[in-house]
């Protein structure tokens, strides 16, 4: 807080402390980023392990076998969940890295928007591809 002299000092003492808090902190959504990062992390423990096991079971599968396996309802569902959750978690993590290390404001904003665009693109592409395989269109 500013150190002031004379009348300014008196005036600042008369101001409600709320004046200094406004606009400087979180309101209602402060913990969202932190919390969603943890929730997606917890989900990715299970989904990630499932993904690794599934890929291992597909090692020497030919095209038709691989496609049939992904087309099974549970596999299709879990694969879509895995892709969406992974991109979501990745965006939250990359966002913190960018905020920490990119100190030029416009570059920071461009990168923050770019990773969000890329993640939505990747997640939607993944989901559409799984749906196409699962529904056989």
């Amino acid at each position, binding site marked *: 807080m500013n150190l002031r002299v004379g009348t300014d000092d008196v005036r600042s003492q008369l101001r409600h402390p709320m004046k200094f808090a406004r606009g400087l902190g979180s309101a209602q959504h402060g913990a969202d980023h932190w919390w969603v990062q*943890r929730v997606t*992390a*917890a989900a*990715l*423990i299970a989904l*990630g*392990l499932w*993904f*690794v096991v599934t890929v*291992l079971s597909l*090692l*020497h599968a030919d*095209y038709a076998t*691989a*496609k049939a396996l*992904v087309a099974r309802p549970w596999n299709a569902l879990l*694969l879509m969940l*895995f*892709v969406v959750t*992974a*991109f979501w978690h*990745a965006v939250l*993590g*990359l966002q913190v*890295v960018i905020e920490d290390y990119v*100190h*030029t*404001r416009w570059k920071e904003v461009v990168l923050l928007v770019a990773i969000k665009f890329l993640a939505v693109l*990747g997640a939607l*592409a*993944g989901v*559409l*591809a*799984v749906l*196409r*395989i699962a529904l056989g269109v």
Partner: protein
Amino acid sequence: MADTQRPLSPHLQVYRWQIQMVTSILHRATGIALAVGTLLVVWGILALASGEAAFEQFKSCTGSPVGLILLVGWTWALGYHLCNGIRHLVQDTGAGYKIPQFVRSSWLSVIGSFVLTVLIWACVLAQGGAA
């Protein structure tokens, strides 16, 4: 650089390397690597959806020597980020913050990541290798 001239706090170069620093840095590094790896997963699914030729191309790329090296790297990154991520979730509950516990769990993450990598690639080799 920062827009304003401010005194900077001491950074990495002034500290002796400790396992807690290594695990923290690696968590970010593997996280960035895995974000890129997610694009590879999407490429695989897209290839599977677009047809046999695209899928064979995907398999030959991932099965190439460079592809295999990258896959081993991503396997380790996933194993590490998983182990250390669980460690962070445990610490979020407030547990394990005494320095000896912190150091021990750091080492557990590192060792666990290598165990997982070896296990996964042992499965691959047991099935007669990748490609």
